[in-house]
């Protein structure tokens, strides 16, 4: 980091201490390393030549109070720890509850979080290996704690899911086999028809997959959030930072765009005619509809 940026960071750290309602008696020397890390992580990594004014603005938008609290906790300030626990116990418990199946699991998860934050393990330099070191001050402390809880919950869930395979997984595998050419008993197509459909579906599937990969990262993220993660438009829009209506319009545009791309791939690369492509879209969609209905029917029978 050059001297100019170091000076900006130093000044920015001073301003942060000044605007914090409780700076926990910290000095610039305590703040500068954390601010520097945040600047490098979110600005200089992507653009080493970030203008100084942008760096100063970035620092001024950081959460001064939250960062002071976390640094004071790291330094063993008892009052800061009490404040942290008092202010965020409810947040941690709520996040743990929403990430857990039952109250006991949520309580275990919340306790694990506090242990992780306190740093029961020690680093090479003898200091406790606390997760607090990873808080940059860019986002809110409450949101960061929720993220920590959610990550820990995912890790715990993955460990458990290695041992237990749910019925839903079996269903998904069944659907996957359908897509790969192992039809389940849904309708009774003739062998010729079945073979034809299989090829058509495979071509269509591959073309669609390729088209999705060619979308911009943001469009692809929207498709994944909506179709793969089954989020509602409002939720998907929230991830992208846009309104539900914007997400809806963007999704409609993506669908049109994908259709054009798929058609182009099928015509240009697979030798299909335009008419065949149009007819195949309708047939495959109809066929998929039937598949989904049968899948739902099978699920319903199982659950009874």
């Amino acid at each position, binding site marked *: 980091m050059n001297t100019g940026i170091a000076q900006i960071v130093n000044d920015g750290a001073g301003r942060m201490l000044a605007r914090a309602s409780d700076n926990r008696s910290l000095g610039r020397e305590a703040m500068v390393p954390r601010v520097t890390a945040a600047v490098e992580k979110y600005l200089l990594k992507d653009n080493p030549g970030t203008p100084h004014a942008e760096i100063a603005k970035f620092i001024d938008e950081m959460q001064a109070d939250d960062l002071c609290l976390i640094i004071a906790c790291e330094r063993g300030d008892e009052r800061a720890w009490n404040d942290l626990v008092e202010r965020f116990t409810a947040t941690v418990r709520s996040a743990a509850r929403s990430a857990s199946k039952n109250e006991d699991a949520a309580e275990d998860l919340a306790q694990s979080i506090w242990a992780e934050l306190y740093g029961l393990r020690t680093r090479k330099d003898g200091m406790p290996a606390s*997760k607090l070191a990873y808080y940059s001050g860019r986002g*809110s402390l*409450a949101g960061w704690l929720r993220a920590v809880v*959610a990550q820990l919950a995912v890790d715990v869930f993955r460990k458990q899911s290695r041992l237990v395979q749910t019925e839903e997984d079996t269903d998904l595998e069944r659907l*996957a086999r359908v897509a790969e050419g192992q039809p389940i008993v849904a309708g009774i197509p003739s062998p010729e028809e079945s073979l034809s459909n299989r090829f058509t579906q495979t071509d269509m*599937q591959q073309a669609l997959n390729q088209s999705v990969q060619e979308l911009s990262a943001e469009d692809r*993220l929207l498709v994944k959030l909506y179709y793969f993660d089954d989020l509602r438009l409002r939720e998907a829009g*929230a991830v992208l930072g846009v309104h539900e209506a914007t997400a809806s319009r963007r999704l409609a545009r993506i669908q*049109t765009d994908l259709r054009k791309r798929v058609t182009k791939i099928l015509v240009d690369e697979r030798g299909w005619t335009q008419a065949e492509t149009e007819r195949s879209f309708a047939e495959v969609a109809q066929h998929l509809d039937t598949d989904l209905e049968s899948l739902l029917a099978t699920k319903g029978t199982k659950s009874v």
Partner: protein
Amino acid sequence: MKQETNNEMDLLLRRLGRRDDAAVPEEHLDADELNAYAENAVPAAARARYTLHLAECSRCRSLVAQLSSSAGVVAATDSRAVPEPSGFRKFLASLFTPMVLRYAAPALGLILVAAIGFVVLRRNQPDRFVAQNTETASQQKPVASPAALTDSYADSVTAPSPERLDEERKQKNEPAQPAPPPNMPPSVTSVDAEVSKDKAVAQPKPEEQPASAANEPAPVKTAPAATPEQSPRAAETEAAKNEVRVQSADASQKEKKLRDEEREDRKKDSDNFARARKPADSVSAPATGAARGIQSGGTDLSANTRTVAGRRFRKQGSIWVDTAYDSSKDAVTLSRGSEQYRALVADEPPIKTIADQLEGEIIVVWKGHTYRIR
């Protein structure tokens, strides 16, 4: 057509989503990055990088989705950390809330009206007091004979004689006391009590009074006519008088004679006055309640009102009351001859003039203070 094509794509994409088995990247966003992304607090370049990762990583995507949905809650929690306005500003703001304006403002108006009404009523209290006196006088009117009127007139213009004082005490069943405590709390009720005592004195028929006075052992008087200073002192020196009464019976006989003569003179005077007053009674009464009261009582207005040292006094019972007297104000009670009284008259000589010229009890308002001189 467009909607239909979109429906077909929709179904295709749903199917693609169900069989998405893309490998999850090894590297994931850390909690700070996930949170910053969910809170839209990441600079554009970094955001594009994270978006690219999220498009491929279902794990991070689900976490971001989860955090984004709770970001609203977090934002709401953070808003509490914003410094609240000062207590005074909050108070001012609370004064103008719709609820306050809807209910408290009319209530405040009512309170104001009530307060104004209360003040007005309090101001009228002295008049009411006088009216009370008037009522008593008017009650007496049907039974009052001209003699009684004359007698009451005589009582009002002269200080009560020692016999009268004794008679009063008898009627009140009070032991003879040297003087009321100088610091007796003055109040409206005390004045009312005085008035009621006065009423009690006024009620016996005039014919009975001389008789009862005659039955009394005749007290010795050092002076035939009561001077303004004598009436309060008479009470103070009651014990001494009793002694003198026993010792000098002859003197008392003479005194009785003198008193009888004096009463005769007074009676004549008052008869003359009543005769002279009669036509004046038909004249319309002054507007003030006090004057009305006095007139309805059949007593003389000029006789009951005197002006001394620039102050106007009205006789109410046996008390000369300053017309500026406000019964709601506390009065300082003083006895003539007391240390306090001497100190007061030394500072304010006109009060001495008033006290000398008006016999009996006086309520005088002087320089904003009210003094009750006995």
